[in-house]
């Protein structure tokens, strides 16, 4: 392509790769079984590691006797908490974990000891010979229970607040005055049940300690090799420069592989102890305990509207059930209050959130991180509010929709905004007006919108360095090799990277070789979370590619006597745009450039703009660009049994520009699936004794192909100036409107007013009988006085 002519918003005809539905670069290996997941690695001398896990939800550890296990033939090493005492955690503000429990276990399944043995069966038998003396304490398994006073908090380091792990309290504008001024005020409570990622690949880590130089190499199924690199150093007291982390291809992540995990640290420690490479692959049951999934969240929302149906103010409270440890909890807590303002103009807004610890596996980020729960509450609430006013819900939403290039009351910068266009397109595709008017009793359609970040604007640990870095080597053969620390987890990041470089160099994506996810050989990318890779890696890749091709253009310019600004890279050649028959093959061009300048290569970096507000918690919510989605769901309810079919889903998503429309469609369909699955079936439930109801794929129900409806996806393109070639995210946002749109459809079909997930036939039947379905109320909990935050200055896109 020729960069000089490319402007956001122009027709995509100028691109050769971007905008075309293309086969992903990793597809051929995947369909031939040639991808190397971590558990596929079978190093020579490989030892097998296993974790002994607590059967107690909450207990003191009086002692651990490992002598019987240690004396078994074939056992190579046994470690316990005292061997790995260092605290770690993905967020600096929540380093409350150790690889093995120290003196307390906090959930059923928490690792207490680890074994390395010559084979898996020996390791398993050795676990049985480890004797742990537990002193059981009363488990806490509910939000209410966690807020009650206790003399034995799950964590003692929080001090004074019982099982309160995190608090947030913010007020933007004057909410009470807004309610005073309102013509109508409504309040609702909602509960969004927790759920888990259930990626098909069970977590795995292989660690190899080389005592010669003193270097640790770890192969991990992780979304965040850079963060794992840092956390291994912290947990093991090994300098980062003596640790190498490889992120292998990941068999599904969805946020479930974004934490440092005990099995990674234990594999390393066991390797150091026994002098052999050690692999630990979790069983499916163990994956349920590793969790870090969607927090169960109880929510209360109160909103005032004026006579014209415009929101005057909103008050939102959330209560998060965090499980036994912090994980991303500080961020999750703020995320339950951050993005409400991105879809609706809320001139006065108060948010209070509390995350509690309970004796259950730690919750963390799952697709949409902390935002599907409040989105569910908000969309349901808005729809009910419209009903109170006797106003069409679409019209009510539209009156309150945000627009492009504005700043929200909580200081979030919205750039391109496809909310209105997504709404129009999805309603038209679904034939909404007619269906809403004519569908018979028992059938219904529902609507909702959503928005998500395209990459968090702030890193997880505070620093001023780039979030994505790309290094690029151009070979005299005309091939290009790209080095980047990104992690392919199935979302298509390798294809994005290869396609962007191919576009700039006038190559096919298959001409581009990738070296990714290796902390020794590739520059840092922060990882595959917060829908950040396409935008951040993409921008860094464009910078690197443009820098690398510049000397090639210069050399060709000299050779052919054509001004360099008239040259373009197309179809493997560098050509004169005025007369494309004049040009050189890329290989030849590189050879002239290399003769003139030496090795051809370049680096590119991307740092998000500094756009966060000036208040505590302001780091959660800002992003270079928000994606927007609108969904229609159609259901058919059996009024005798409460069972219902989801007949079809229409989903319009503002993706900025679809770099690869087939991949975007795949992300939309996958998001719709996951949203439906958690809204219909997935249930992160425990007994009051802290036992998971069914840590297996049979007992933990999820949607199969039989229940998966047809999905009509519509990519809305708003050409985001901050995105690479105009692109925004597509991997998480489309999930958000699905659960509320589904609930709205059930309401449209049978009038049932449901305020919680999952939406089971039993709840539908209850709703049919006119009974309320949802939480009775919220705990009587005294939040701290909110920090009052000044309104931000008006903004209309300056600096973008």
């Amino acid at each position, binding site marked *: 392509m020729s960069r000089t002519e490319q402007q956001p918003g122009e027709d995509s005809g100028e691109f050769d790769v971007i905008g075309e539905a293309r086969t992903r670069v990793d597809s051929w290996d995947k*369909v031939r*079984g040639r991808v190397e997941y971590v558990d596929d690695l079978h190093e020579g001398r490989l030892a097998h590691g296993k974790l002994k896990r607590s059967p107690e939800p909450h207990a003191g550890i009086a002692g651990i006797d490992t002598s019987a296990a240690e004396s078994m033939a074939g056992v190579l090493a046994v470690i316990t908490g005292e061997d790995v005492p260092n605290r770690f955690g993905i967020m600096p503000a929540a380093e409350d974990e150790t690889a093995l429990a120290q003196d307390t276990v906090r959930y059923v399944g928490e690792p207490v000891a680890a074994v390395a043995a010559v084979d898996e069966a020996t390791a398993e038998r050795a676990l049985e010979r480890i004797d742990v003396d537990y002193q059981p304490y009363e488990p806490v398994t509910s939000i209410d229970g966690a807020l009650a006073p206790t003399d034995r908090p799950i964590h003692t380091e929080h001090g004074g607040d019982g099982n309160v792990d995190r608090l947030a309290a913010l007020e933007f504008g004057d909410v009470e005055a807004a309610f005073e001024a309102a013509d109508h005020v409504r309040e609702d409570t909602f509960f969004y049940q927790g759920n888990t990622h259930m990626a098909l690949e069970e977590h795995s880590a292989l660690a190899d300690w080389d005592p010669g130089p003193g270097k640790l190499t770890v192969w991990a199924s992780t979304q965040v090799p850079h963060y794992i690199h840092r956390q291994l150093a912290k947990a093991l007291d090994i300098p980062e420069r003596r640790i190498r982390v490889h992120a292998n291809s990941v068999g599904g992540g969805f946020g479930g592989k974004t934490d440092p995990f005990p099995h990674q640290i234990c594999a390393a420690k066991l390797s150091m102890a026994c002098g052999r490479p050690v692999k630990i692959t979790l069983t499916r049951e163990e994956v349920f305990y590793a969790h870090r999934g969607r927090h169960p969240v109880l929510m209360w929302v109160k909103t005032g509207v004026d006579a014209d149906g415009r929101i005057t103010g909103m008050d939102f409270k959330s209560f998060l059930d965090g499980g036994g440890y912090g994980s991303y909890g500080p961020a999750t807590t703020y995320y339950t209050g951050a993005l409400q303002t991105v879809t609706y103009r809320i001139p006065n807004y108060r948010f209070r959130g509390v995350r509690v610890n309970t004796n259950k596996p730690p919750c963390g980020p799952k697709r949409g991180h902390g935002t599907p729960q409040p989105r569910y509450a908000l969309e349901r609430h808005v729809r009910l509010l419209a009903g109170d006013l006797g106003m069409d819900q679409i019209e009510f939403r539209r009156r309150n929709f945000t627009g492009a290039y504005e700043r929200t009351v909580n200081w979030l910068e919205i750039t391109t905004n496809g909310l209105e266009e997504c709404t129009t397109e999805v309603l038209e595709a679904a034939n909404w007006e007619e269906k809403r008017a004519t569908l018979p009793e028992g059938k219904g359609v529902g609507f909702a919108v959503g928005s998500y970040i395209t990459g968090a604007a702030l890193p997880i640990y505070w620093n001023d360095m780039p979030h994505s870095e790309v290094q690029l080597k151009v070979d005299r053969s005309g091939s290009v090799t790209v080095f980047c620390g990104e992690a392919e987890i199935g979302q298509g990041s390798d294809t994005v990277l290869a396609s962007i470089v191919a576009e700039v160099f006038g190559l096919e994506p298959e001409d581009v070789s990738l070296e990714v996810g290796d902390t020794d050989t590739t520059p840092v990318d922060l990882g595959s979370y917060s829908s950040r890779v396409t935008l951040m890696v993409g921008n860094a890749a464009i910078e690197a590619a443009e820098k690398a091709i510049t000397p090639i253009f210069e050399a060709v310019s000299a050779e052919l006597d054509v001004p360099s600004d008239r040259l373009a890279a197309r179809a493997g050649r560098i050509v004169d745009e005025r007369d494309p028959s004049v040009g050189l093959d890329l290989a030849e061009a590189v050879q002239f450039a290399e003769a003139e300048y030496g090795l051809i290569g370049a680096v590119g970096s991307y740092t998000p703009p500094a756009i966060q507000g000036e208040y505590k918690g302001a780091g959660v919510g800002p992003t270079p660009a928000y994606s927007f989605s609108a969904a229609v769901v159609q259901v058919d309810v059996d009024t005798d049994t409460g069972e219902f079919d989801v007949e079809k889903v229409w989903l319009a998503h503002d993706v900025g520009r679809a770099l690869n429309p*087939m991949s975007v469609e*795949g992300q939309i369909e*996958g998001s719709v699936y996951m949203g439906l699955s958690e809204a219909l079936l997935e249930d992160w439930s425990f007994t009051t004794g802290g036992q998971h109801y069914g840590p297996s794929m049979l007992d933990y129900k999820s949607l199969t192909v039989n229940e998966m409806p047809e*999905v009509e996806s519509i990519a809305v393109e708003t050409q985001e100036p901050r995105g690479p070639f105009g692109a925004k995210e597509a991997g998480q946002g489309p999930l958000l409107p699905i659960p509320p749109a589904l609930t709205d459809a059930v309401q449209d079909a049978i009038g049932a007013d449901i305020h919680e997930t999952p939406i089971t036939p039993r709840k539908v039947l209850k709703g049919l009988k006119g009974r309320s379905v949802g939480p009775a109320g919220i705990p009587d909990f005294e939040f701290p006085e909110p920090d009052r935050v000044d309104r931000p200055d008006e903004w209309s896109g300056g600096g973008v």
Partner: protein
Amino acid sequence: MSRASTTVSFTVNDEERTVPVSPNATLLEVLREDLDLTGTTHGCELGECGACTVLIDGEPELSCLTLAIDTAGADLETVEGLGEPDPHPIQRAFAERGAAQCGYCTPGMLLTAKHFLERVDEPSREAINEAIAGNICRCTGYRKIIEAIDAVGAPTNESD
């Protein structure tokens, strides 16, 4: 690596193999660990997810629930044997239609689909659904998998 106390002989991807195995070793373990055929993946080892599906005498079976010694004399096919040297039409369809995202369920899906397509002409969507109902995919929402199978099964599949 299982502790061998017997041997089993079978044909894997048209190659005759004799492998020392332990009597309680599953076919999944023997394929992955003894024969290094790691294209066959595992998501539960309890028969819940379908990832480990291979063809045993042409029938899709869960290799995690099959004892290796019970496959003596059998003709086994794994994803590694599906498209050699050129990709099988179903592999091509999966690749070109975006039916593989993380790729982890893909080998099991492909073998299930191959078996299905050999038996059913011009399959209906319902028949495709039924065929792959035992294979869990968390990435794709199944739509592109169904479309890929449908494309190969359709009477005029020019894409292949």
